[in-house]
């Protein structure tokens, strides 16, 4: 549905994107994940037509839109701070895209009412954006983008301006909405938990380059670069092997392939316990153990334990 090929964007001496290739299937929700400055927002804006690439091509639904203006791409865009039209009511905001296309009035009314109901803002139709809470403004921005029935939905850090509680609720709601509408969606986020929870596939960007694209499981269990490994989850080293802290087996007796270690510190994190150990052969290690398992082990500071890694991460 969306095909990016060799896309590069440069601002003077700074390279924002370097030869990025990405293909998004119809109906997929792909997250663009990366730290600040990784180029993920730039990539989204290139797809939207708000930025033009210096190299490469962009195709939507088979059509080359590399230099087409945003109006002609059939996209819907939700900005990080929602970009509401302050002089219009919620109803008029959502109706904007339809009015601009001179859609017949009753058709506008039907669609706007349906969308407002979908996002739960029917009662706020006559309010102005500044009278809404952050979460409500976000939902309005989404409804506004969906009103024109875009083929592709682009979200630029949609939840970053909201507090954690509202965030979580809206995340779940967005996934449901996506499943219901089936719109191809590209979402920028710097929050790995958000990407893991919502996306069918995640594209990890670092410093303008695409590091890896894959499902959340692929990225977590089989990262291809050290950056992806450390960005998508924590990792710990046991001897020569690297593994996720919660994938290290903690044993009470020596076993084949297990490394001896001494417990140096224990931290109770609630759902799991973090145990720091000094390895017999030198070096330190950090493992995470589910609470129930910890009760079985009953390890204290100074105790000896044996660590075994059955599922190491490929990248060392």
């Amino acid at each position, binding site marked *: 549905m969306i095909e990016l090929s060799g896309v590069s964007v440069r601002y003077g001496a700074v390279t924002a994107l370097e030869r990025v290739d990405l293909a998004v299937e119809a109906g997929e929700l792909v997250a663009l994940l990366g730290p600040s400055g990784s180029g993920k927002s730039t990539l989204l804006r290139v797809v*939207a*037509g*708000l930025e033009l690439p210096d190299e490469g091509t962009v195709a939507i639904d088979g059509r080359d839109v590399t230099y087409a*203006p*945003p*109006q002609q791409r059939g*996209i*819907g*865009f939700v*900005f990080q*701070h929602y*970009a*509401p*039209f*302050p*002089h219009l009511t919620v109803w008029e905001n959502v109706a*904007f*895209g339809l009015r*601009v*296309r001179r859609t017949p009035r009753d058709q506008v009314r039907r669609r706007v009412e349906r969308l407002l109901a979908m996002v739960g803002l029917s009662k706020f139709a006559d309010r*102005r*954006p*500044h*009278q809404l809470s*952050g979460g409500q403004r976000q939902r309005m921005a989404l409804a*506004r*983008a969906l*009103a*024109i029935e875009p083929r592709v939905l682009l979200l630029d850090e949609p939840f970053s*301006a909201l507090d954690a509680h509202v965030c979580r609720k809206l995340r779940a709601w967005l996934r449901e909405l996506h499943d219901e509408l089936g719109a191809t969606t590209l979402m920028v986020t710097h929050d790995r938990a958000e990407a893991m929870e919502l996306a069918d596939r995640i594209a990890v960007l670092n410093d303008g380059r695409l590091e890896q694209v894959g499902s959340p499981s692929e990225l977590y269990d089989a990262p291809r670069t050290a950056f992806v490994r450390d960005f998508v989850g924590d990792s710990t080293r046991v001897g020569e092997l690297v593994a996720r802290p919660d994938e290290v087996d903690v044993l009470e007796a020596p076993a084949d392939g297990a490394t001896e270690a001494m417990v140096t510190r224990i931290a109770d994190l609630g759902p799991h316990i973090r145990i720091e150990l000094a390895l017999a052969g030198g070096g330190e290690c950090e493992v995470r153990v589910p609470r129930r398992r910890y009760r079985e082990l009953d390890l204290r500071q100074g105790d000896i334990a044996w660590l075994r890694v059955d599922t190491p991460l490929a990248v060392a």
Partner: protein
Amino acid sequence: MTAGATLAADGRTPGRHGPRAAAVGRTRRGRSSVGAIVLRALVLGYLAVLVVLPLAFVAWQALAPGLDRFVRSLTAPEALAALRLTLIAAGVATVVCSVLGTVVALYVVRSRLPGRRFAEALLDVPLAVSPVVGGLALLALFGREGWFADLPIRVAFTPLGVVVATVFICTPYTAREVIPVLRTLGAEREQAALTLGASPLQAFWRVTLPALKLALVHGAVLSLARALGEFGAVSVISGNLVGQTQTLTLLVQQRYENFDLAGAYAAALLLAAAAVATLVLLLRTARDRPGAAEGEGGE
């Protein structure tokens, strides 16, 4: 503007800043401190001596010879012609500068074309340069030996010249009001409009312009006030032909020089009244102007 500031200094803000700010200049008991009283007296004294007194004096001098004389001065043919020219020039200049000012502001803030910073600096030239120099420059362009001396429409020593000179003088006002608002607003809303299918023109009309409304009105009022009182540039370019290219300000000067003091003061009072009326308009638009943050409502 200043009116808003003096309201706050009074200590009785309409609760927007909370009780602490209202306590500025007040002692614990709520009575004004000595320092605040002295400051207030100084400010009011300054305003009285430099603003109120001269205006009161002009009014007195204009009306002292009798209401009859006053009305005759104002209804004399040269006075009516001057009034008409002043209003037309000020009106046209305000409209032209509003439109052009907005275009320049858009170019400076939103476009990625070269020369933006230069253009922005150029905007201040009519403010920095003496209006007389401006008028002279126009004369150099359009006068008998000027570059554009042979245009089909004569500019020098005509009412058109008066209008052109006024436009030159008023050029900075709208642009300088609109530019900061455009900057603070950011391009996101216009981009949102584009992604929703609006053409750049539609985006401007439906999204940008409504946001600029107050800045435009404020700029227009400033323009108008400035245009009404313009003297230097107009004096040079117009040739001061009575009944044809003479504005109210030029009329005041001419009558004064011809020892028609009552007539001069009458015209001056008219100008002063127009200035005060414009100021009142200015105060209303300034107070209604909430600053850049209003539209966002806080993010």
